[in-house]
């Protein structure tokens, strides 16, 4: 496997090095850089907590929404964060089914990213309800009002089931993947840490039969997660596509949202991985081959996103509907034209730079592009949601949406929550899947590809 292509992992790495490199950050005191990161992320989280507490106490009148623009930052952030999660599932499930070995170094943290992103996403519809203590009303449960059931024909209810299932399955898939590695950490630990990791690893010992069952279960979960991830953002897109707002009710929305989600998710994976390999010293495991592979995914999905934008414009023109045509003309040249420019620039134009070998091989350039992709994809949702609502059917109800400091604080707070969870994950759980990386090492060092009898 490694004869013609450069190895995924630095070729002199042995299984013992993998264990040491991945476990040692958990066993020593964290670096100053980690504390600094936690301080920044924790402060952002605190700001978010204050803002959310304030808006729950006072009400969502503290937001910049009005009768014309009923969805603003809240739903933009919701769609943004759900989308971020999709790359984690793609890397862990779809690439597992396609037997892409390069996923092994990044799948653990990408899956963690999925879970944390879905947590961030889930917060927004709940606080958007205004009375979050009644959030359980979204579930069908026998109640004293009839019982009056939820409306199963509503895309908003589909969301509850899609996001709930997505979170549950992602969490289980991630945890099942963690079990053998937690056992490794347990075997190296002493005292209370051994006890805690002993509970967490569920008593895994790595016998032949358990590995055999384990691998089948992982393949099954991957096969389940693959259609699931496609369904989740399709359902999210139905929140818009099943409405009658020009700019929202488009047939192209489900595939357009799914590919956009994968695109934005890979942008976030790249951002996180480039930081993590530097801060944690994982250059040996997250090599240039990984960065190049992710760049290719970014160019591919970014181009499809561009195609989706073009399809939207074509459909608007071809529909012959004055409202549809106005919406898109307004989107490009109206008061929110600047946001449309950011969206197209960051999502369609900038990733094309990755065709150039010089750009692809520069870590800094790739990092900047990945950040721009994150920005661009946030603006895509903002353009779709606010841009379509601001210009109503009646010019008398046209407004301009301006987010309030509370909304900005909540957005910053969601990033704070995401990065706080991610930093804690880096500190307390093995960030790289040791048992999987050990199977892709170069053959002379006991990797799983050492077929043949040279014993």
């Amino acid at each position, binding site marked *: 496997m490694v004869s013609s292509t450069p190895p995924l992992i630095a070729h002199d790495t042995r299984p013992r090095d993998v264990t040491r490199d991945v476990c040692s950050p958990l066993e020593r005191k964290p670096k100053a850089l980690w504390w600094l990161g936690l301080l920044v992320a924790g402060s952002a989280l605190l700001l978010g907590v204050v803002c959310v507490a304030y808006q729950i106490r006072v009400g969502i009148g503290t937001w910049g929404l009005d009768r014309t623009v009923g969805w603003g930052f809240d739903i933009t952030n919701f769609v943004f964060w759900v989308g971020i999660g999709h790359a984690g599932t793609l890397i862990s499930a779809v690439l597992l089914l396609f037997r892409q070995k390069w996923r092994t170094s990044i799948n653990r943290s990408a899956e963690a990213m999925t879970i944390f992103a879905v947590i961030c996403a889930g917060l927004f519809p709940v606080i958007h309800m205004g009375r979050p203590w009644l959030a359980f009303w979204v579930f069908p449960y026998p109640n004293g009002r009839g019982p009056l059931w939820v409306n199963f024909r509503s895309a908003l209810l589909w969301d509850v089931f899609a996001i709930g299932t997505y979170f549950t399955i992602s969490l289980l898939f991630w945890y099942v993947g963690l079990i053998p590695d937690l056992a490794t950490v347990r075997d190296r630990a002493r005292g209370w840490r051994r006890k805690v990791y002993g509970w967490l690893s569920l008593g895994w010992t790595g016998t032949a039969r358990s590995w055999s*069952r384990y691998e*089948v279960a992982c393949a099954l*979960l991957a096969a389940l997660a693959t259609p699931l991830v496609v369904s989740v953002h399709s359902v999210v897109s139905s929140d818009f596509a099943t409405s009658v707002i020009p700019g929202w009710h488009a047939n192209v929305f489900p595939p357009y949202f799914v590919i956009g989600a994968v695109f934005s998710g890979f942008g976030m994976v790249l951002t996180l991985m480039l930081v993590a390999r530097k801060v944690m010293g994982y250059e040996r495991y997250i090599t240039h081959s990984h960065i190049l592979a992710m760049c290719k995914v970014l160019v591919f999905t970014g181009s499809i996103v561009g195609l989706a934008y073009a399809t939207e414009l074509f459909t608007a023109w071809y529909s012959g509907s004055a409202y549809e045509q106005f919406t898109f003309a307004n989107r490009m040249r109206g008061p929110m034209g600047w946001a449309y420019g950011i969206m197209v620039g960051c999502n369609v134009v900038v990733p094309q730079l990755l065709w150039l070998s010089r750009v692809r091989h520069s870590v800094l350039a790739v990092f900047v592009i990945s950040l721009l992709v994150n920005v661009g994809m946030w603006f895509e949702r903002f353009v779709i949601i606010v841009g379509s609502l601001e210009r109503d059917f009646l010019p008398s109800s046209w407004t301009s949406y301006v987010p309030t400091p509370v909304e900005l604080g909540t957005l910053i707070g969601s990033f704070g929550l995401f990065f706080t969870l991610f930093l804690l994950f880096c500190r307390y759980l093995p960030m790289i899947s040791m048992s999987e990386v050990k199977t892709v090492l170069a053959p002379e060092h006991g*990797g799983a590809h050492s077929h043949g009898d040279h014993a």
Partner: protein
Amino acid sequence: MSRRQMVGYFEEESAVLHALRICRERGLETLDVVSPFPIHGLDEALGIRRTRLPWLTLAGGLAGLALGLAAQYWSSASDWPLDVGGKPFDSFPAFVPVAFELTILGAGLCTVFGLLGRIGLHPWRRVGPTRPRTSDDRIAIVLAQHDARVEPREMRQVMLECGAVEVVEEELP
């Protein structure tokens, strides 16, 4: 019968498969292989039966699907039919997303808890002192020891010839 077993530690995966073949040829009984990563080809070598876990996944998925469709039909069309935008009460196309999600949820839960149940994993499971480095870089072959006098020497010899880095005799409590 004596309660002893012989454990050979290997660092090369290919050496393990080779050693297992030699052991079988010599008529030695392999009890288990403990490894830090999955090794392909062990199932045949150790005679591990194919798992029936996929059937449990299928059952869980079908249960989720049935529950999803039944609950939606019953609550929307039977228990409290509510006119929403003039749509029919039994609007099955609209029930597809929730039924689909519940199918996946049922299948996934059954897969994970089926796995944990079948290989006996739970937080309170007591793990004694684990064999050194078998969750790190060493693969252990555990051989059954039926005769305390004759077999140990042969077992040790076979495993060392096959590339074992260490061979240890274990006494079970």
